């Protein structure tokens, strides 16, 4: 029971982190990052290969690079950094000159290709079988299977989610967040006011990548395995569905979406009596995710908790005729 509850909560924390990142990129800035899941995967793989011992350990049944056996929190910090550092090269290719929908397509193709390359290169990150037996953080000091450890891990994950939530909140309420929204609403006008569109997009791309990397590290530290099948490109679409349902551009919406879509779906199907041939339920689940996106974009494109409309008072106008300076400050 403890295991079940903590698993649900850790997944919730990871999905909340991912949805906050997508909300910052897609909701606030209008970047459709269809390769989001590879940032999470990069974080997870980084944390895994840094905390695993050399691949000759455990009888050498899996192959991977590095294997530095570093102790917590170094792998998590590195995962966050790798997530952030992955963003500039992708951003430089994609965000500079392409039309917004081609940006999305380029990233989608990248996501497919990345998974293909990792699968076909077993010596790099374990290939199709992936990595397993990833040591849990601090497992040399505590028993990672005790209830206390599980709860502590969950608490840590949730605290990180809350911290990132407040950071995201600060970002969207800052002048920087305002510039991002201006860019989303009207890129030409924002540029005309002297905003550097590419730099603005790139920073939010890096921030989102860092959050994604951290979320991957948290997840792999808990489930201890990671393989290409966990980060196929449709996984990104689940997160987009969550943000669209919750309300893009609104951090509360991102949290709500994370709890409703990825977590909610997983838990709902767990209690469903099995019916039909094997594989029917997962297929129907995907149909529902697609349907959810289409339905929400048609009936409620701004989501359950829409982004707050920001209205700024106009400057006071001169009121008294004949006195040109009246009302000016």
């Amino acid at each position, binding site marked *: 029971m403890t295991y079940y509850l903590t698993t649900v909560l850790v997944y919730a924390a990871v999905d909340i982190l991912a949805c906050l990142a997508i909300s910052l990129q897609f909701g606030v800035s209008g970047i459709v990052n269809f390769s989001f899941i590879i940032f999470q995967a990069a974080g997870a793989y980084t944390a895994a290969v840094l905390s695993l011992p050399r691949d000759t350990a455990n009888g050498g049944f899996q192959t991977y690079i590095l294997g530095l056996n570093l102790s917590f929190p170094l792998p998590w910090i590195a995962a966050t950094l790798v997530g952030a550092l992955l963003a500039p090269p992708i951003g430089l290719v994609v965000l500079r000159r392409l039309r917004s*929908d081609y940006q999305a*397509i380029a990233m989608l*193709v990248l996501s497919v290709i990345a998974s293909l390359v990792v699968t076909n290169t077993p010596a790099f990150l374990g290939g199709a079988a992936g990595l397993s037996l990833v040591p849990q953080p601090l497992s040399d000091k505590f028993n990672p299977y005790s209830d206390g450890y599980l709860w502590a891990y969950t608490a840590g994950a949730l605290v990180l989610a809350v911290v990132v939530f407040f950071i995201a909140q600060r970002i969207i309420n800052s002048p920087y967040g305002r510039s991002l929204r201006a860019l989303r609403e009207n890129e030409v006008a924002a540029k005309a006011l002297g905003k550097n569109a590419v730099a603005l997009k790139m920073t939010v791309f890096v921030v989102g990548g860092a959050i994604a990397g951290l979320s991957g590290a948290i997840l792999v530290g808990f489930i201890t395995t990671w393989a290409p099948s966990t980060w196929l490109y449709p996984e990104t*679409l689940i997160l987009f569905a969550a943000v669209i349902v919750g309300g893009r551009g609104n951090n509360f919406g991102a949290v709500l979406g994370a709890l409703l879509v990825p977590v909610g779906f997983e838990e709902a199907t767990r209690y469903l009596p099995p019916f039909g041939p094997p594989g029917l339920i997962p297929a129907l689940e995907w149909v529902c995710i697609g349907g959810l996106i289409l339905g929400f974009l*048609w009936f409620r494109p701004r989501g359950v908790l829409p982004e707050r409309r920001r209205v700024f008072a106009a400057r006071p106008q001169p009121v008294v005729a004949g006195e040109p300076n009246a009302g000016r400050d």
Partner: protein
Amino acid sequence: MSLIVAAFGFGLVSMSIIAISAVGFTMQFGITNMINLAYGQVMIASAYAAYAVNNAGVSIWLSLPVGAIFGAVFSFLLNRLVYAPFQRKGTNLIGMVIISLAVSLVIANVMLPIVGYYSVSYHQNPGTTYHLGSIALTGEQILIIVLAVVVMLVIYALLRFTRLGKAMRATAANPTLARNCGIPTARVVDLAWLITGALCGLAGTVAGMNSDSFSVASGSEFLIPIIAASILGGAGSPYGAMIGAVLIGEMTEISAAIISPEYKQVVAFAVLVLVMVLRPQGLLAKRGALAAAG
């Protein structure tokens, strides 16, 4: 060396399949200004439609039109029931991309329980193998190449010499102006979806014929060389897509011979990245995938 020459022969077949599909894909973009990411899934659905007929005992060449008609009707309905309503509502470009990806997911997962998870292959007779130096092609592969050439000529004639083709080009260039000139753009768009859908269905079936087997998962695999060829040629330009198909088809097959067949898609992707960095408008288009100046 003879390996590379043999690969060149396979490249001829690859480029034929990519050309048929990429021309349809790029014309959908040119005329409707949206990227239909469900294209690969419609291809695979059409391949299965042809498989149903083929499995009932009909020759694969007679099943081919079934695939094409299925693709045409499917694409037409997809536009009428999903894409066009969203576009009328004023959904922006990135909204449409998300919608088409969601549609692609729905199609794939509705198909899965119906056609099953295992790959299938057509009942076909590849015919005798013809040799020319190191190039060895089956009779069927040669017919696929001939079919592609005929289709390209038909598309060229359609766009160049018919009123419909002229109307399509006008609609692609400026829909508002075309409408104001009295061109029934709604009907032109409907016809465009039927024609491109037929190309999509045809390409799906031909791709199924050329590979040993196919499954629902093949849909997203098809899409990468198509996207690469379209963007390389210049998104929205049918002739560009033909050139792109020739280049991508040969490059992927020759690299498969030199490096490894597993990295075919990676080579297509590398080309895509180069084009996006150096020339986002592609070889032949003015705009292509380039963002509006601002």
